[in-house]
């Protein structure tokens, strides 16, 4: 009994150790490649010089304007896809006919690489933040609308019938039954939407942009400032991990299952 109860935590600890060992091994390989095996420092700077650049980027506050642009684009893109996705998803979920029409349609569109619209968006909205916002909003719209349709569209009929038999009004039905039933599914979709919005905003910045973290990284690469570029990549990774952890925490708080 006590052994079984302890198992999951120990397994969790072990997988943590394996994960950390894996990362340490990568770092060791990287160091070996730059010091022992003679890989060019222009292609692959030494970990220590990347670390110095990373510390300098954070210490000097040089990252701030680019971070502001990228986070601004992300916030705008997510606000648009959140509003449109949840509203449309709810409206579609009210009719089994609309669900049958739109769920496969959206799922189909979601599976094509929407990044292909970037050149079009750049032509329409220019090189500034607007095209990045449009792309991020388009890509993150689909997981959000799909999860909202599924969340509201497939609520356990027994619960709805029970609430109806006790006299629930339409507003009460939404507040006490439909919304809490759909919430975990919608939150999963929102988390997914947030992740793909972040990916597409930074990704499209590296392709066509005037500012932002993605833009900065490409610029540094073009100037052959490799150590600093790696420092910025490390910075973006840190930001992404931070944001995703935050969003996962928020998601876990809204979950009852």
């Amino acid at each position, binding site marked *: 009994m006590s052994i079984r109860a302890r198992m999951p935590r120990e397994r969790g600890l072990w997988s943590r150790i394996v994960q950390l060992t894996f990362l340490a091994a990568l770092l060791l390989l990287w160091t070996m490649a730059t010091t022992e095996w003679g890989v060019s420092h222009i292609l692959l700077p030494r970990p220590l010089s990347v670390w110095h650049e990373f510390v300098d980027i954070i210490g000097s506050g040089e990252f701030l304007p680019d971070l502001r642009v990228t986070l601004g684009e992300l916030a705008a893109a997510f606000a648009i896809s959140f509003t449109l996705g949840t509203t449309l998803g709810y409206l579609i979920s009210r009719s089994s006919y609309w669900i049958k029409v739109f769920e496969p349609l959206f799922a189909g569109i979601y599976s094509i690489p929407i990044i292909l619209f970037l050149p079009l968006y750049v032509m329409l909205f220019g090189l500034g933040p607007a095209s990045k916002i449009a792309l991020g909003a388009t890509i993150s719209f689909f997981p959000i609308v799909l999860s909202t349709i599924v969340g509201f569209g497939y609520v356990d009929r027994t619960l709805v019938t029970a609430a109806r*038999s*006790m006299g*629930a009004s339409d507003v009460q039905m939404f507040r*006490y039954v439909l919304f*809490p*039933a759909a919430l975990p599914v919608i939150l999963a979709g929102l988390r997914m939407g947030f992740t793909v919005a972040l990916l597409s905003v930074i990704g499209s910045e590296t392709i066509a942009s005037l500012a932002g973290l993605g833009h900065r990284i490409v610029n540094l690469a073009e100037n052959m400032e490799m150590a600093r570029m790696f420092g910025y990549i490390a910075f973006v990774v840190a930001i992404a991990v931070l944001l995703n952890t935050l969003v996962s925490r928020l998601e876990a708080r809204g979950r*009852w299952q």
Partner: protein
Amino acid sequence: MTAEIAIQARNVSHQFGEAGEARHVQALLDTSIDVARGELLCLIGPSGCGKSTLLNVMGGLVTPTTGSVTVAGKPVRGPMPRDLAFVFQESALFPWNTVFENIVVGMTFQGVAKSEREDRARRALRAVSLEQFAEHYPGQLSGGMRQRASLARALSLETGILLMDEPFGALDEQTRMVLGEDLSVLLSRSQKTIVFVTHSLGEAVFLADRVAVFSARPGTIKQVIAVDEPHPRKPSFMTAPKFHALRDQLYGLLHDEIRKAMAESGQTRRRYDDVANGADA
């Protein structure tokens, strides 16, 4: 019968789908019954005989194709949360609410004043001996406890009528026996009118004042048997000769109907196979 009538069903028929459609089912055919105030009426019959449909028609969840139902003299046109409460087979508790919150939410729906809800919820939990599990979530309870919580929610609504759709159907034999005893005790105290759908012959005889036996599809009430035994019923009733005589009588009535129902569902299956094999085309 001179007793006051709580529910009156008159010539109720119900069909799902239109005649001629593949999914057309005549679930209930020209069924009439009066439920006296304070009695426990069991509906028993083969699968698909329309006993649950009749219960849902009584509760205003299903509008019958023809016929009418009145509850306390009022025609039923939709849910009547002030007059009757449901207990469903599967736990219809909201999984995101604790047991206590589930009961309070039910009263919120029904329109009970906020100041009264907590007291009434506590009283209902005491009635089913679940006080200690008020803060548990349904997922943390056993099947039997979940059904007791569902019963507590229905009791808190303080309706004159309880409609129970195989409430113990998913539970094991021992649990349902104990819950049956509890229900009998509760009933003897509360003077509620209860309509109780069940598959179990023993449960029907143990709980009911009268048992309505349904025929196979299209279902209608074939015969009503009175169980003349006061509530609360003791476990010893289950071993009494009278219990066995009634149970055997029910079995005799049901046996042919169940065979008929099984033969029909066999036929249905064969028809589906034909369609699947393209024999109809």
